[in-house]
């Protein structure tokens, strides 16, 4: 590369956490001619057992040069030049002379999302205040939602009884964040980040486990965090390429949110009827099917995300049911709701659309974020995404990670948190 910008992707499938850390670091940076200027690190949840991720990160730092700017977190799956994986660890490293990099983090995202975002932004701004190469991007990784373990009840994101549901909707949702659990509030965080860093390109998402929503982790430097936001700010002299597309289409099914609470995150009435009853009626799900929650989540609601009339860039979905109430993954952005639907073909079309009309000749790397729900839906057919990526960027180090939710945007079209999107970041190294 004449520009001096290098990038590399590595990975490991070792079961031993420390060995996996060493291997992913080694297999990534050995392809670079100079030490990395930043290092993105992602792992599936399989090292969750006590000290697992501590050992894992220690293994990475056994190999990585000290003080390398590093962020990352747990994801459900990833695709890179080597294949598709729902177990393993992977990394993308970049080295370049005309670049400034800063790290930022904020804790307690579920209880104080804006404070966490503000702390993170202050660190980024302080870290990048000297020099200006002219093009800035931020990679943000936010702790995703977790379902709390309730005494005598276990982990539940649905409560059948109306009384229990009412209590959970009014008290429970406010108490859980005190213990680091509950909704991720990624929407608040991203809204605030973009308002404070309005000249940045954004890409990122929220961490998760395998989709059970029990736990998730974020990495920054040598730290393993929970319930936090971590970010990498980059100032570079190359133009940034960023694209974000939705892989879902609108159905002719709409309804009105006529009552909501908890800052529009919990719907209590749809079309003036109890929310759950009306929503199941719209989806034509009977009570017996609903009781088999697995059917609902994996075979139905995953395919019915929602958006809002007039604000179609926002998408979300159902996160749980509390009695008659519906908990949304993110706050409702409007009253009129439109149902969306997703097919496997649509996902491939979005990948094709991203790359078919651009030249990737001068992309030194490609980093992508997408929804875990696409991996759930496609299963082994996720290799069709890899085949499509290989048609366009096979010879470029690339990494696609699956998050619980994603965000991506430009200064002209700021990032929002949403699901069912496909987001792509690179830089144009010919300039």
């Amino acid at each position, binding site marked *: 590369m004449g520009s001096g910008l290098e990038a590399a992707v590595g990975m490991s499938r070792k079961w031993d956490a420390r060995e996996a850390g060493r291997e992913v670091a080694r297999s990534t940076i050995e392809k670079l001619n100079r030490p990395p200027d930043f290092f993105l690190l992602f792992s599936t949840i399989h090292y969750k057992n006590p000290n697992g991720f501590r050992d894992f990160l220690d293994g990475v730092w056994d190999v990585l040069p000290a003080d390398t700017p590093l962020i990352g977190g747990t994801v459900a*799956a990833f695709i890179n030049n080597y*294949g598709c994986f729902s177990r393993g660890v992977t990394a993308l490293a970049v080295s370049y002379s005309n670049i400034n990099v800063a790290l930022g983090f904020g804790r307690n995202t579920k209880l104080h999302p804006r404070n966490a975002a503000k702390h993170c932004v202050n660190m980024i701004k302080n870290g990048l205040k000297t020099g200006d190469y002219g093009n800035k991007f931020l990679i943000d990784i936010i702790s995703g939602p977790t379902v709390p373990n309730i005494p005598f009840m276990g982990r539940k994101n649905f409560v059948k009884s109306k009384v229990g549901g009412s209590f959970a909707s009014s008290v429970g949702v406010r108490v859980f964040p005190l213990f680091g659990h509950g909704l991720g509030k990624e929407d608040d965080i991203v809204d605030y980040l973009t308002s404070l860093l309005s000249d940045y390109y954004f890409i990122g998402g929220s961490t998760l486990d395998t989709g059970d929503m029990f736990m998730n982790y974020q990495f920054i430097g040598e730290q393993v965090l929970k319930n936090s936001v971590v970010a990498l700010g980059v100032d570079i002299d190359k133009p940034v390429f960023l694209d974000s597309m939705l892989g879902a289409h609108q159905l002719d099914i709409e309804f009105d949110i006529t009552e909501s609470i908890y800052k529009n995150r919990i719907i209590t009435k749809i079309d003036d009827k109890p929310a759950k009853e009306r929503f199941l009626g719209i989806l034509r799900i009977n009570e017996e099917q609903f009781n088999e929650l697995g059917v609902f989540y994996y075979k139905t609601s995953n395919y019915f995300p929602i958006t809002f009339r007039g604000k179609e860039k926002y998408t979300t979905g159902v996160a749980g049911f509390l009695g008659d109430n519906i908990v949304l993954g993110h706050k409702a952005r409007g009253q009129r709701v439109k149902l969306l639907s997703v097919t496997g073909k649509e996902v491939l079309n979005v990948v094709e659309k991203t790359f078919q009309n651009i030249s990737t000749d001068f992309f030194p790397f490609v980093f992508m974020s997408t929804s875990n729900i696409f*991996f*759930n839906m496609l299963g*082994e057919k996720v290799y069709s995404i890899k085949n499509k990526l290989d048609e366009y960027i096979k010879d470029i180090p690339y990494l696609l990670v699956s998050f619980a939710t994603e965000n991506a945007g430009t200064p002209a079209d700021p990032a929002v948190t949403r699901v069912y999107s496909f987001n792509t970041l690179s830089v144009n190294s010919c300039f």
Partner: protein
Amino acid sequence: MHDDPIACVLDDLLKLDDVLACMVARRNMISVMPSDGTDSFKPEINEIWDIIKRAMDDVFTVIGEYSGVGLGEMEFRLQDCEVLFYVFPDTENALVAIVPALSNKGLIAVEMENARREILEIMNRKEELLVDS
């Protein structure tokens, strides 16, 4: 058994929480088990194992009929388990895994596909060695 590379692939698959049992099988025969055989299967399937084995044989009849014309995967649900069949192309053999009924099948399927590809590679290498010799 610990030297069998296909058994090692099955060992890896069995380490996933939601994989209760796995094997390479065909009708009336289990060709390859994980290194510790059925001892390494998770205890949840002990009660249901015999029924599942019988049901598998019936499914392999269908696999035998249609694998030559592109049958790739099959699955069925029995009580609280699902049995997944990932067919080796143009053969009557399949990689079989038993998972809980409400497990996150999408992510398991990714690793099933990886295991199928690895086992195919091992089988092809063995064939090449036989041909060369």
